[in-house]
């Protein structure tokens, strides 16, 4: 057997060993057709399921973006998808308050601000003739929209203190265009924003508690003095105006509310400020 014969023999042996005929070829055909059918069904199912989900996500994102709910939505999505990888640094605890603050799970006022200026509530209420119109301005029934940043800060103070730092740091395209508008997350890990947040939180807690408007005014003044260009300046000024109403300082309240009513802060609290000013006149 020559060397070339070896290869020829090898080729012939392979050729004869595998002719392509097999008894189970029908079975293989059936397997292929089943696999094709399954693949096609999977593809259709993918379209049926994934397309609406993608559309929903798209529409939802657009809606959230346009209505300013994007941070809330993002936070919900991030919590569902467990994006909460890094624990945020804990903001410094606020200093000693005039009295023990109530432990509230939701310190941010979700209810309208107007009821807090009802004549019965203030520490030293203004006279009835002035307080009555303030107490119930007809347009104040709907809850004023809390700015996203404040809402975020409120959420940040809840027990779930785990928001990824990669979360969007700017609020959605809100109508507030003033440079001092709280448009960023209040809980960045830097030390300065934390101090700012703590200062604002102290005043805000006093304001929301509603029983110490003078202490709240003082705390807001401290905050505004320390952070004249802070992120919560509009909210602080507005809340301070409400506290001024509570203590009967209508002039200060008017002065503080006028920029809001004028639109200096965009649409932020504009309507409420107008209503309050109207009621104060």
């Amino acid at each position, binding site marked *: 057997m020559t060397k070339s014969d*070896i290869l020829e023999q090898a080729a012939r*042996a392979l050729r004869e*060993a595998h002719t392509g005929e097999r008894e189970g070829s029908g079975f293989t055909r059936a397997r292929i057709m089943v696999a094709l*059918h399954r*693949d096609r069904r999977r593809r259709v199912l993918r379209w049926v399921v994934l397309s609406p989900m993608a559309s929903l996500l798209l529409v939802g994102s657009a809606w959230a973006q346009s209505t300013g709910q994007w941070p809330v939505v993002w936070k919900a999505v991030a919590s569902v998808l467990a994006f909460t990888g890094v624990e945020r640094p804990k903001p410094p605890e606020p200093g000693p308050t005039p009295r023990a603050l109530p432990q509230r799970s939701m310190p941010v006022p979700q209810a309208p601000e107007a009821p807090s200026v009802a004549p019965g509530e203030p520490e030293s209420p203004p006279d009835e003739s002035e307080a009555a119109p303030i107490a119930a301005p007809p347009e104040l029934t709907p809850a004023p929209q809390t700015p996203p940043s404040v809402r975020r800060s409120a959420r940040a103070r809840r027990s779930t203190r785990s928001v990824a730092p990669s979360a969007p740091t700017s609020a959605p395209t809100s109508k507030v265009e003033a440079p001092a508008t709280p448009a960023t997350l209040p809980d960045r890990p830097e030390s300065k924003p934390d101090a700012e947040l703590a200062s604002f939180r102290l005043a805000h807690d006093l304001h929301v508690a509603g029983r110490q408007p003078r202490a709240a005014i003082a705390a807001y003044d401290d905050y505004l003095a320390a952070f004249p260009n802070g992120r919560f300046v509009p909210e602080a000024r507005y809340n301070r105006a409400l506290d001024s109403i509570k203590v009967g300082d209508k002039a200060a309240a008017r002065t503080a509310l006028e920029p809001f009513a004028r639109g200096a802060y965009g649409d932020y609290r504009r309507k409420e400020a107008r209503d309050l000013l109207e009621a104060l006149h």
Partner: protein
Amino acid sequence: MMGAFNTTMRALSFNSGGVPPADVGMAQLVTRLQKGEAQALGEVYDLHHEAVRAFAGRLVGDPSIAEDLLHEVFVALPRTIRRFQGNSSLRSFLTGVAINHARHHVRSASRRRAAVQRMGREPERETESPEASLQRTTFLQALNRALDRLPLDQRVAFVLCDVEEHSSAEAAEITGAPEGTMRTRLFHARKKLRAALEQEGIR
């Protein structure tokens, strides 16, 4: 769908030049396959499964693994047929697809053979042999072991050119490699295989 259109147009132009209607039928079959018709896949299987199975068996050297490879080729066909330009026959295209999917099948067949050899027993054969058949089986086993030592490209070249008796140009078309490369692969394949068979004691 543009590929399907091109294939059909090419078939029609061939037809006007006197190409037999079988080519037109094939072009239509390819077009239907490209459109995703399940029935067309069945027809292609009926036409070509033996050729693809034979090639797969010769390449991997194991009938059951060849059957798996065949299954994989035809399951993937609705996707891969989009690449078919009509420049070669459908059979050549299917062979090329089989080569593309063969790598891990060749490995698994090789592993299986090595395992069988280690266990010191022969795999059961479909045809029980008289003496000549036993000799052939022994030769085939040695051949498969020798083929397992070749790189896949050279193994493909040997199977296409020497076993399936394709020309180097056809083999180059099937594999998508240049013809010169194919000749080089075949040269090295023959050389290594010869040496390997001699090592196996076949002279």
